[in-house]
């Protein structure tokens, strides 16, 4: 009976509509934020910050982005990688063209460019649905990938053909480029991800979120209660691509520190989609779970044999990792097809009725 809402009465609608109406949830979130913002930066190793946490957060943001589109609006997209790329290249163009403006501003603004591109490729969604829609987004994926390689203007005619991240500072502290400390970059990523998660939760709790979900669940009925399908879908494409774009820009500027077009390939799109599904379609918290499982699990698995002292070749470990991750995905789906988020909910439900089984 540790976790229950009984006894917590809401006296007005505003409180009832809060993100975390239950006290225990609020405490939990506070603790997590504290760990993320204070404990990890203070005590985490560079490896943890740079190779685990930062990528995890970047992926989580991209996953949220795709979740808004696929999980909340029901539009399947396989172009996430490319939309992330648009964000990255836009940010690169912006910060090299206007070096005076702080790069964080540009990271966020680059989202608008991918939003615009997203809307463009979202147009066919009015007529095309389901897996068929995936082709429209695949067209985006391959076409944009091609552009990233073929339009040298995008990478400032660099001979290397890649984005090279210049050093930028905030209050004199380097935040991008090789001299920036992993912890600085981590904190920036964390801040952006927290703020954008909060904004996303605002959106989905309000009218727009309901419109999206209505379109997802039954578009005909949605149309008949007066929701304009095209506008709603395009808005979803825009917002989703915005998130992906920002994630892409963060990925290059705050994680990789430089990138080839290859980074934004179709595999990236699939990876994000899988994070969405494994985490739970239509769940923000699930996006974090999904990103963690798909990104962090293989890393951990890779360390296991070494920790156990089993002498295995790096390649064999990799093969086994693949096998185990593959099997685990299936197992997770069998245990809970609605994703980790649902597992989480059921866990809470069990806590609520604890110590009784149901």
């Amino acid at each position: 009976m540790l976790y229950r809402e009984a006894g917590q009465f809401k006296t007005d609608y505003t409180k009832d509509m809060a993100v975390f109406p239950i006290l225990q949830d609020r405490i939990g979130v506070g603790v997590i934020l504290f760990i993320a913002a204070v404990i990890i930066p203070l005590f985490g190793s560079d490896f943890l910050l740079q190779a685990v946490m930062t990528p995890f957060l970047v992926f989580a943001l991209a996953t949220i982005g795709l979740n808004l589109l696929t999980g909340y609006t029901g539009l399947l997209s396989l172009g996430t990688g490319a939309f992330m790329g648009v964000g990255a290249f836009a940010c690169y163009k912006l910060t090299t063209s206007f070096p005076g403006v702080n790069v964080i501003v540009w990271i966020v603004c680059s989202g608008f460019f991918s939003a615009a591109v997203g809307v463009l490729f979202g147009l066919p969604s009015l007529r095309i649905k389901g897996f068929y829609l995936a082709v429209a987004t695949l067209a985006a994926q391959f076409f944009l990938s091609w552009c990233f390689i073929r339009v040298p203007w995008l990478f400032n005619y660099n001979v290397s053909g890649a984005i090279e991240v210049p050093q930028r500072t905030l209050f004199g502290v380097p935040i991008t480029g090789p001299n920036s400390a992993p912890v600085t970059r981590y904190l920036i990523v964390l801040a952006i991800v927290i703020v954008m998660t909060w904004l996303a939760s605002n959106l989905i709790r309000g009218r727009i979120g309901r419109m999206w979900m209505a379109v997802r669940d039954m578009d005909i009925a949605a149309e008949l209660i007066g929701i304009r399908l095209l506008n709603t879908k395009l808005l979803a494409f825009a917002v989703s691509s915005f998130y992906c774009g920002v994630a892409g820009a963060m990925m290059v500027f705050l994680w990789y520190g430089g990138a080839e077009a290859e980074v934004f390939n179709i595999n990236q799109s699939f990876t994000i989609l899988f994070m969405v599904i494994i985490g739970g379609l239509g769940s923000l918290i699930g996006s974090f779970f999904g990103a963690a499982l798909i990104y962090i699990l293989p890393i951990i698995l890779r360390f296991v044999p070494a920790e156990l002292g089993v002498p295995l070749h790096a390649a064999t470990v990799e093969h086994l990792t693949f096998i185990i991750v593959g099997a685990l995905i299936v197992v997770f789906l069998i245990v809970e097809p609605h994703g980790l988020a649902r597992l989480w909910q059921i866990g809470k439900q069990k806590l609520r009725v604890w110590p009784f089984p149901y």
Partner: protein
Amino acid sequence: QDTIYVPLFTYRTGPFAGSGIPIANGMSDYLTMLNERDGGIGGVKLAIEECETGYDTKKGVECYEASKGKKPVITNPYSTGITLQLIPKAAVDKIPVLSMAYGLSASADGTNFPWVFNPPATYWDGASVFVKFAAQKEGGLDKLKGKKLGLVHLDAPYGKEPIPLLEALAKEYGFELKLYPVPASEMQNQSSLWLNVRRDRPDWIYLQGWGAMNPTAVKEAAKINFPMDRLIGVWWAGGDDDARPAGDGAKGYSSLDFHAVGTDFPVIKDIQKFVVDKGKSQVQKEKVGENLYNRGVYNSMLIAEAIRTAQKITGKKVVTGEDVRRGLEQLDITEARLKEMGAAGFASPVRTSCTDHNGHHKVFMATWDGTKWVKSSDWMEPMKDKVRPLIEAAAKAYVESNTGWPKRTEPCDKSS
């Protein structure tokens, strides 16, 4: 017990594993051999650790971060994509990057890239040798006028690398450059590209491909009856598995190379004796001595020599990344040294300097005879005079676009 930690980023998985595996074997076998035969370098054992990248930049960066904590003396990214990520980090983390004949061509400029090394030759050197070779067969550079030279390349930064040089040479010598990009997703589906080749009828083709793209290209070339002796691959298109699938069709196909093939070298024999025969290698016995295997061995020779040089300069036994950087900058593998190493005739001498991290060394043609690669030309000097200005310009552009790129502070050692 003191060791020197040498991480090897390799890929034995993923779509490019075909090229990755022999290289990985060669690299680790040579270093293991040093441990087994000599007890390491200068009496210090090497701690060799492979990290699997799958040719994926993400995993490469992860490997780098994971290895960073263990004080590596050198990084071998083994992928242009990963190299690009690591170049800016090298100076900060004080770990030199050795991207042997790949990576960023501009990093040959030691003044701007003190921490990055790409001997023995850059892609631009390679492309210039291709042009030279074509000219030689046509009867002189002036005979190139009006000829068509084609570049079949992977549509990615790696594949596009030779373009600026070839364009410059095209202007200078009056030949026409035709580009044939192969998108990564179409690596094994090149028929329309080769139809284009058939229409354009280029006189020579330079193949800058990787992985499954190469065998497909060679096969398709054979299919349209393109004369094989006019198809030249960059050194990365010279794997045994690149030519073998085309069978007889690939006979006469040549690729650039900078080290010998086969097992007739004391050093390779030592590897067989101390490593392979003792079951300390993952290699299949008959694959020892193949082109890409020897490429790996060559790569490790450079690593080992750099460490040895570092020990010599500093007088320390256990060297650090900073020391090895100095060692890499002063590599001087002479004929005599090669002989000592048991590698006489295996490669040409290599020398680097403070300003020149590459050396622009000689390369030669290896031709596929239907079952193996055989050396088919003399060592050819690249057009260093054409390549060097491009490199300096590119390095300058790189530094300019990366605002805040640090000025070189590392002093040049006297001897270089």
